[in-house]
């Protein structure tokens, strides 16, 4: 697949790969999404906005320059943005492939990275190599994060991203470090069409984490522990949908992760928490029936999710076909609908 290297969105014209019951692979566009969902199905979306989550700073102890990329919000809630997992990066910037970045200067617990006069990152612990637990110190944190942060982006992008390039049509509280990008092709007009057909809409909040670290070892740790919150209204809608035998459709893997993490005894639960849930083939989904998600490279944790939702051989066939249909991958690329639950149960 070619990477979608521009933030320009194709909206309705975005390609849609559909993997469905009876092991079918079909190709459509997002404009037809309404045709694949039924009356009383429930579409659940992530309403998190995305912070500019890459910061350049100087280590107070050694005066060395280091890039800190936020990796996952650690709570306790969106009004308190102090606590994060983060990765340190060495020399270079987003224009250099992350795996070619140099090793960052060593950081130890207790180190402070001075990002600006009004923003300091306190290194709480070093978890694995460059994986850090940090706490921000600032008297005006919300403002300072935007003053000093730049969007996290990768070398396949043509241009530097602007903050608005990373927001979705559902963006509310900003706790994601990379966009919950399955929403990128959607417009409110499409949402209104879905609602007019009788498809329900619900939302939750999940802090989408970093997608790539430049290290195979560290990538294998992804997704990290992430914070989520499910409102009681969403829980009610999920449980009603399930009890009526209709489908709960997750728009994006962050929604999938939040809802599955909060499910108990086949019932969705409301509330906030941190999730470490990972998916692998054979995972028994408790709540989610269908997933809408972006196209991503082989070998990523994302593929594990797809293989858990659909038979791996069907995913393989689908991904082989997209090569011939000029799909584009990464966050601004095309998307897929995985609707195989009935065929694999």
């Amino acid at each position, binding site marked *: 697949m070619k990477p979608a290297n521009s933030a320009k969105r194709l909206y309705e014209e975005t390609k849609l790969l559909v993997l469905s019951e009876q092991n079918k692979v079909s190709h459509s566009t997002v404009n037809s999404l309404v045709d694949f969902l039924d009356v009383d199905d429930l579409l659940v979306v992530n309403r998190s906005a995305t912070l500019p989550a890459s910061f350049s700073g100087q280590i107070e102890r050694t005066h060395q320059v280091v890039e800190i990329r936020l990796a996952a919000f650690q709570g306790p809630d969106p*009004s308190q943005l102090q606590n994060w997992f983060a990765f340190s990066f060495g020399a270079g910037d987003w224009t250099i492939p992350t795996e070619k970045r140099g090793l960052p200067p060593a950081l130890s617990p207790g180190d402070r990275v001075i990002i600006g006069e009004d923003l300091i990152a306190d290194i709480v612990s070093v978890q694995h190599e460059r994986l850090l637990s940090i706490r921000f110190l600032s008297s005006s944190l919300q*403002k300072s994060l*935007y003053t000093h942060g730049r969007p996290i982006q990768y070398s396949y992008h043509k241009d530097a991203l602007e903050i608005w390039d990373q*927001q979705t049509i559902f963006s*509310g*509280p900003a706790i994601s470090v990379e966009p919950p990008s399955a929403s990128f092709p959607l417009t*409110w007009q499409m949402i209104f069409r879905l609602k007019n057909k009788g498809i329900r809409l619900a939302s939750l909040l999940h802090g989408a984490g970093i997608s790539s670290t430049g290290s195979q070892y560290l990538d294998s740790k992804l997704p990290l522990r992430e914070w989520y919150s499910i409102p009681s209204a969403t829980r009610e809608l999920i449980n009603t949908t399930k009890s009526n035998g209709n489908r709960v459709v997750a728009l994006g893997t962050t929604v999938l992760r939040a809802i599955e993490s909060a499910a108990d005894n086949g019932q969705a639960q409301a509330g906030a928490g941190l999730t470490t849930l990972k998916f692998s083939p054979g995972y028994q989904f408790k709540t989610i029936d269908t997933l809408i998600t972006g196209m991503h490279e082989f070998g990523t944790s994302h593929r594990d999710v797809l293989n858990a939702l659909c038979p791996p051989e069907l995913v393989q066939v689908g991904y082989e076909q997209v090569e011939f249909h000029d799909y584009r991958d990464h966050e601004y690329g095309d998307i897929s609908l995985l609707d195989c639950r009935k065929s694999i149960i």
Partner: protein
Amino acid sequence: MTHQSYWENKNVLITGGTSGLGRALTMQINELGSNVGMIARTKEKISEIEMMHPNVIGIQGDVSKKQKIYPLAGEVHSRLGDIDILFNVASYLGDTPLRNLIDTDCEDLEKVLQTNVLGPFRLSKAILPAMLLRKKGLIVNISSDAAISVYPTWGSYSISKASIDHMSKIFDIELKAQGVRFLSIDPGDMNTPMHFAAIPDANPAELRDPNDSAAKIIELIVSEDRSEVRRSV
């Protein structure tokens, strides 16, 4: 419905909250029990309001700047939460003394439109998702009689206010089925620094106190009469 019961515990965001009508709305709505966030450009003026009204959340920023909208929205969501009512009050008259359109610099018209039209449009877009997901919300844009009547030398401002009227009507017709409504309110000629910048020799006795206009706007909103988008108070 009483004013108190309507406003109590609502999250209200007001731009241009440190002077004129914005300041009057900030103070009155805060008194009525809402959680009020107020966006303004000048830190000192924000601090002054926060000193007098410790419950008011002051957020410094310029809504006319495209780069500032998502940082402002991020700060609003973090410090105030989802917004029930947004007032786009911040407004710019244009360079004074006011001049005929033929003598108006293109850059000046652009600046007026950035503050009075694009700013409210961008901020509304950043605040609307939470309203649409909750199927309720109100966005109030502040208009002027100059949106309807034609006054020589008021060109840039008139154009911007006619535009905000139309923008409000279009948003309203597109979103009212989703539970989100818009009003575009002409608050009358008020005794404000902006009015005196436009008409330095205006007679203060003939101008309304912004507190009176704010009270009438609050009354109109509580009435829940949404039969027309453009209103005068």
